[in-house]
């Protein structure tokens, strides 16, 4: 399985966040992919579909070596008996090259968790999984895209802002500067030693 450098970096950060000795999320991902590969001969790879709060979903895809999105003929969204936790939901989408490759696995998984087969999503993600931008101009997708905003929020909290005031400040600063909230957050972090003289908890 090919894990991009950006995904590997994100998984390393998330592993640190877990703070559980012996746990490596990238290794958990590799083991899951290895097991899926053994169960489904035409397995091509997987996507992680992450939704944080009311935000837009972020889809991160990792395909097997040599596999291409155009080869995908069937998909399976893993039926997992789990509720979203703390506003974060993570879905696993599997891809394979042979139509019908997931039928038996889907049936077994549904039986194991006590769900009806009609509850499982097969072939509902047949749009080719997002391939890396060949031009290299677009920033790679990241499940940690809010990190700068959260850090900037922390900086502002330290300066006397409440969290709500920090959010309003970043939004207002973004609008005034013609950048998005990420850009406003990056500016706060870039000028840690030079707080904006107009900066006031609103």
């Amino acid at each position: 399985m090919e894990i991009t450098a950006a995904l590997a970096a994100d998984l390393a950060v998330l592993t640190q966040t877990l703070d559980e000795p012996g746990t490596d999320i990238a290794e958990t991902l590799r083991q899951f992919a290895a097991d899926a590969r053994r169960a489904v001969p035409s397995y091509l790879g997987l996507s992680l579909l992450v939704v944080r709060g009311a935000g837009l979903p972020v889809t991160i895809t990792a395909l097997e070596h040599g596999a291409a999105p155009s080869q995908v003929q069937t998909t399976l969204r893993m039926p997992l008996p789990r509720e979203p936790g703390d506003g974060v939901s993570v879905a696993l989408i599997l891809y394979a090259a042979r139509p019908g490759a997931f039928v038996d696995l889907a049936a077994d998984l549904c039986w194991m968790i006590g769900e009806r087969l009609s509850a499982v999503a097969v072939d509902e993600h047949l749009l080719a999984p997002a391939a890396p931008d060949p031009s290299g101009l677009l920033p790679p997708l990241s499940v940690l895209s809010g990190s700068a905003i959260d850090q900037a929020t922390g900086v502002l909290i330290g300066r006397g802002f409440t969290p709500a005031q920090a959010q309003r400040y970043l939004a207002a600063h973004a609008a005034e500067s013609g950048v998005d909230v990420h850009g406003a957050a990056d500016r706060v972090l870039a000028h840690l030693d030079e707080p904006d003289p107009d900066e006031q908890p609103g």
Partner: protein
Amino acid sequence: MTDFDPDARDPSVSFSPELVDDLADLQASLTNLAGLVTDSLGLEELMARVATFAAQAIPGADGAGVTLLRVDRPDNRVEALAASHPFVAEIDEIQYVTVNEGPCITAALERQPVRSGSLGGEARWPRFGPRVGRLGVHSVLSLPLLIPGQVVGAINVYAREHDVFDEHAERLGELFAAPAAVAVHNAQILTQALRLTAQLQTALSTRPVIDQAIGLLRGRSGGTAEEAFTRLREISQAEHTKLSEVARRIVDEAVRRARARHLDT
């Protein structure tokens, strides 16, 4: 082995009472296997039940174990294992930890059933056999767990008497092992998927407060995000407190001060 048809009238086919009992035991075990529901069972508890069903399915068995193996990793083969009885767990310890040899490993590597009726003098496993013989266990039948093109583990069935498992037992074992392999491997996939999504959900839900704490520390004393994270980890280790709890405490204290200041102005 002749197909079992309870309505058969063919006089050339006869079923001994023992065969009828053996097939009934196999049928019951296969029915139990099909009825396993995983969401409330961990993988190892499911495997323990499969081991129990295997001991029931094979005539003469005193106990059984189920092992998930990675045959491509000689030094770290065992991914999960379960036993129907404590003596089987003791034998597993000998096979996988003490001597790293035995019928399960052989069956998995060769992808063929393996039998012995006298473990104490078994030349194939010169270190495993005598140790298990001294425990009073003398017969073994090991069956590879096979999914198309892959071996994922093995079922080991043991008996205390000598020469318990014959070709008939081996055939019954193969009939049980085929669906057992799929059930156990699919349960492993489900377990791994749950583990992966749980890890990601937990990490993604706690990362924002850690980033806020990083920002707080950077704002107070400068430095990079990596330096601030290192500082958080030092505090976590010194206080024996989870990183996320340290971050939450730091952020909550700062928010309280900010709110108090806001009320005062």
